[in-house]
């Protein structure tokens, strides 16, 4: 009922990247936190329009991997190239601009700004790129309508349900039409029905050309949304499989 079934117009990406071109290239990426090695020489490529699922046991470095791609963290060694840009070498400000323009991110625990209304949370992302408040709100509202949460636009995150919050987070991630959508266990904090809705949303997005990297513990979700599965263990890539699109 509320989740979108077909690719709706406002979600439509301007997919400047022709399909098949490499968007992300990780080369021998290591990340150490003191004693722990979260990533231990990860080499990986992601092409435009792909949907890649990353799976593995808890603590194997999935979130760390995503953070590397998002420019939320820097590798201890190795390079992360996104659109040919070495993310690890960008200045803090450069990283911020990079995230604004290229990345949309969805977290397991939503990470919305509690002090802002749902709508403002989303509009904020566009305003950071210089979009004036009015058009930013308009676009945010359109996204809300498409995601079926228009009636919750003025509510604050604290009073939203988990599913609603995650849809707000998705809207925020999509606001700037990112080249790359990164989702870290987007259904992890949701019940199966709400999870299902978010899953559908991601699937639809990918079908209209959105490049997607998805970290999940949920095999079903991976099979449903992703075309490729990368498995991690102890900070290393242990396998890559192409997935048959399920039902």
């Amino acid at each position: 009922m509320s989740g979108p079934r077909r690719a709706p117009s406002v979600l439509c990406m301007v997919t400047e990247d022709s399909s098949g071109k490499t968007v992300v290239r990780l080369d021998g990426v290591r990340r150490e936190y003191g004693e722990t090695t979260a990533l231990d020489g990860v080499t990986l490529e992601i092409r435009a329009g792909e949907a890649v699922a990353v799976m593995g046991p808890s603590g194997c470095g999935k979130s760390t991997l995503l953070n590397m791609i998002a420019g939320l963290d820097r590798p201890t060694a190795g390079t992360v190239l996104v659109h040919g840009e070495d993310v690890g070498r960008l200045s803090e400000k450069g990283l911020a601009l990079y995230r604004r323009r290229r990345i949309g991110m969805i977290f397991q625990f939503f990470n919305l700004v509690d002090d802002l209304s749902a709508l403002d949370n989303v509009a904020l992302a566009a305003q950071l790129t210089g979009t004036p408040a009015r058009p930013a709100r308009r676009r945010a509202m359109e996204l809300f309508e498409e995601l079926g949460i228009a009636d919750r636009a003025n509510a604050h995150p604290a009073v939203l349900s988990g599913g609603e919050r995650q849809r707000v987070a998705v809207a925020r991630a999509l606001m700037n039409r990112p080249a790359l959508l990164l989702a870290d266990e987007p259904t992890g904090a949701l019940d199966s029905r709400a999870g299902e809705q978010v899953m559908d949303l991601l699937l639809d997005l990918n079908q209209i050309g959105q490049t997607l990297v998805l970290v999940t513990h949920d095999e079903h979700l991976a099979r449903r949304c992703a075309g490729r599965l990368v498995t991690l263990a102890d900070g290393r890539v242990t396998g890559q499989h192409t997935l048959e699109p399920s039902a």
Partner: protein
Amino acid sequence: MRAVWRAARAAVRRRRLQTLVIALVTLTSTGAIVVALGLVDAASAPFDKAFGEQRGPHVVAAFDRSVASDAQLARAARDPGVEAVEGPFPRATVALPRDTAQYGVFGEVTIVGRAEPGGEVDRLDLWAGRWATAPGEVVLNRQSDWTADDLGKRIPVPSGPTLTIVGFAFDLSRTADAWVAPSQIDALHPAATQLLLRFSDASSDTLLRERMGAVTARLPQGALAGSESYLTLKHRIGAAARAYAPYLSAFGILGIVVSVLIVANVVSGAVISGFRHIGILKALGFTPGQVLAVYLVMVTAPAVLGCAAGVFAGNLLAAPFLRFTFTGPDAGVFHDSVGIPPWVNVLALLGMPAVCVLAALAPSLRARRLSAARAISAGTAPRTGRAPGVQRRLAGSRLPRSVSLGVGLPFARPGRSALTVAAVVLGVTTVTFASGLATTMTRFGNAGRDAYQVTVYASTVRHGKLVEPEHSDPELHSLLSSLPGAAGVTARGDVEVTVAGSARKAMLEGRRGDGPELDSVLTEGRWTRRAGEVVAGTAWLRQSGLRVGDEVRLQKGGRSREVTVVGAFMETNGELLATDWATFTALAPEEKPIAYHVKLRDGTDPAAYARAAAAADPGVGPAITGPNTITQTVVGSASALTAMLAVVASLGVFNTVVLNTRDRRRDLGMLKSIGMTPRQVTVMMTTSMAALGALGSVLGVPLGIWGYRQVVPRMVDAVDITLPPYMTDVWHPAALTALALTGIAIAVLGAYLPARRAARLTIAQVLHNE
């Protein structure tokens, strides 16, 4: 219980900064309270305290030895009105040679034969050496801030024995300049007998006179040779300190109020910022009572430590501080009697932690009642309110988004923001008030300071004898004017007059010469221009219910003169009137000036002038008007107190802002994850706190001024003076702006440091940690 302890310890460890700030704030404010209370205590009744401790005599009476015998005196002192008595002590007056001046005694010196320094009345403070017990020994009356290195020196009494100094004792009541053993006194030919009396009721001079009358009625006619009431002494000694007492008390009370409020603010802020954590503890299975315990321990442990350290620091600080405040020619006698009384320490040690617990209790109790889920969101979720509307309008404004976001943030958490604003208001109010007060005190202290530098008395004492000037009054006046360096000479005489139709007496000063205003500060009206005009001290005007413009008839002997009060000058002495020389001599034709006040040209050495004056006429006694020490010290202490309060207030603001900013670390991480630059994050947080700081300053400055206007007039009223406008117009727009900006600056700094640190953290780190 172990779980509580562990959770509290972990919480303290995770909040090192907060713990440190709580400890610091409680430390400084407890220290301030200890000093402030000590000051209030010392300033409230410095003389009464010292006098009470020595059980000083209400009346020191001297009797003629040839008229009344010791037995008669002892019997007379058994009057029911007499509470306690010491004596009779034989009293001798001897003239000591000039060279004994090095021991602080020369000229006409009173020596009393007394067996011991203690007793029922007049317990002397024997602070060095021992009491004189054998012939040839003497104890000198000396304040303990002198040195005792004259012990063992010898004083030759002309036509008498040579006395060796064996001890120094201090006697506030100055019943003698020196004491010897009773076995020695006869050799000094005592002419009088001294009785030291305490009465059960000694509240007024009239009462004392009555009581003395009852005592002397039992003695032969003419036995009483003279008596001095402690009220005179009290007036003389306490005058300077008394004028400042209300200011010091105001500072003390202000310090207490501010410290308590700031501690309450900081502590409750700490609890509120922990709401989310509280929710998590509850989710873990902590009972509400345990949660409460965790929070109380977490906040009160550093607070109690801070209080204890503060009491210690306060005592350390207060000793030199009080000594510093009560130093000087008049206040020196309080030197030993002021200190931190035990009740202050007890109160601070028990009271401040109690304040902390109470401050922590209110929000902790609220947290206890919250459900786990609500508590988790309570620290973060705006409940209701107009916040979205305000934020919406701001978001639509033309301001950079990071700025409009920052300005909007405080509206999202009104409780937290209110606390921050309260801290700033409190700080700014305090500093406004305190700096105003300090400025007033400084101007009050400096009033009339440059009026003259040398006072030449029209008599002097040499070899124990009064010497008169060789020149006549007019000759002396022009002689002093002609000496090198003199810029102006003003002669001053005084005479006691009565006011027709009233029992009040007045001391009328006649002033003649270049600057008849001397160091008097006009508060109203003008100075005299012609004969028949007087200028009255504010205290005299108030106490006699008169106003500027009124006419009174002054009487002296058989003469009387109608005068108009044309002005008022700042004066706590309730008897003082000043007039021109013509009016003065019209009432008292025989009176001559008692002193000439000389204003010197810039750069003239007062000591050189004084030497020149003494050389020109050996019969005059020039004295250099040194800087007024008590004024200097009190003004200094006002500045020190202002600075101390400013530190406490700044710490309070800083802490609140730091906590507020740290609370938002996770938000900052999120904002960065969607592409905010570190600079934007910093700008946002800083703007948000600057907005609160500005609001606080805008409220705090007028509040401080209002407080000043409420307190200062009442304070000066209490000592019967009126301050001239220049002493109370203490604020200038520039200074106030600077003050407001300081409030904002502290808020900004408190936000800037943690915001910049948070902005620099890797986002992964922040989000991972939360």
